[in-house]
């Protein structure tokens, strides 16, 4: 397997932050591989009451992959943003693989209260959450992105604002409405 040095990965991250979309295409699979490895390592432990902070996991990937001395906080925000997207897919695939599909199968405990403190416990219905989030993105794509970043990547309000190039106030409003929208959607799904 081809290996990539932190320097090389850092260069891709900075280039993407400067607007080079092809850099993102190169970067994403590398980050995905690392996140996938970390996620499976942690989630495979199968301890009862096992929790996983996705933001901690993304942070670990960041430390391993990126030469932090060479980046600005804006670059870090971008790294977390792409990681959030990848993380969502990893967790949903994981949930499907493990046949956590069945509603209420005691699967994932997810708190929307604070994304930074987002923990994954056995029992969370990631599949339902993923579906609700996809529905939200159809109504309002930006809110879908805000939730993805906050929820799966643990990005702060400020970091989301930087990545999406919108004000912090707008992020806060988006986040607030998106949360209740998702809760309502999940309530409806559950009621079916």
């Amino acid at each position, binding site marked *: 397997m081809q290996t990539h040095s932190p320097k090389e990965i850092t260069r891709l991250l900075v280039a993407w932050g400067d607007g080079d979309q092809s850099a993102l295409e190169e970067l994403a699979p590398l980050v995905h591989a690392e996140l996938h490895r970390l996620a499976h390592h942690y989630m495979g432990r199968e301890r009862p009451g096992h929790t996983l902070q996705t933001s901690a996991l993304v942070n670990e990937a960041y430390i391993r992959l990126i030469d932090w001395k060479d980046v600005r906080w804006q670059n870090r925000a971008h790294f977390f943003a792409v990681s959030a997207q990848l993380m969502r897919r990893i967790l949903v695939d994981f949930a499907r693989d493990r046949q956590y599909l069945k*509603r*209420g*199968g*005691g*699967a*994932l*405990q*997810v*708190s*929307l*209260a604070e994304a930074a403190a987002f923990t994954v*416990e056995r*029992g*969370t*219905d990631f599949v*339902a*959450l993923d579906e609700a989030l996809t529905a939200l993105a159809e*109504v*309002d794509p930006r809110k879908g992105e805000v939730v993805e970043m906050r929820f799966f990547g643990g990005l702060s309000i400020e970091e989301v604002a930087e990545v999406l190039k919108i004000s912090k106030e707008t992020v806060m*409003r988006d986040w*607030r*409405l998106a*949360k*209740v*929208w*998702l*809760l*309502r959607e*999940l*309530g409806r*799904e*559950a*009621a079916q």
Partner: protein
Amino acid sequence: VKSERWQQVERLYHSTLEKEVGERPAFLAEACSGDEELRREVESLLDYEDQAEEPLAKLANGVAS
């Protein structure tokens, strides 16, 4: 692309939240001026305000329990 209707819901949701809890129903009813569908839509979102701090899984798993 956001629909005009959704933007309407969004604006009204945030402006209703700025009101005191007790004033919200009257404010909302007046702002909707007879548009019941709009009122119900905003109301149904406001209903979840209290729960936004609760774990999502409670809802997601609520049905099975």
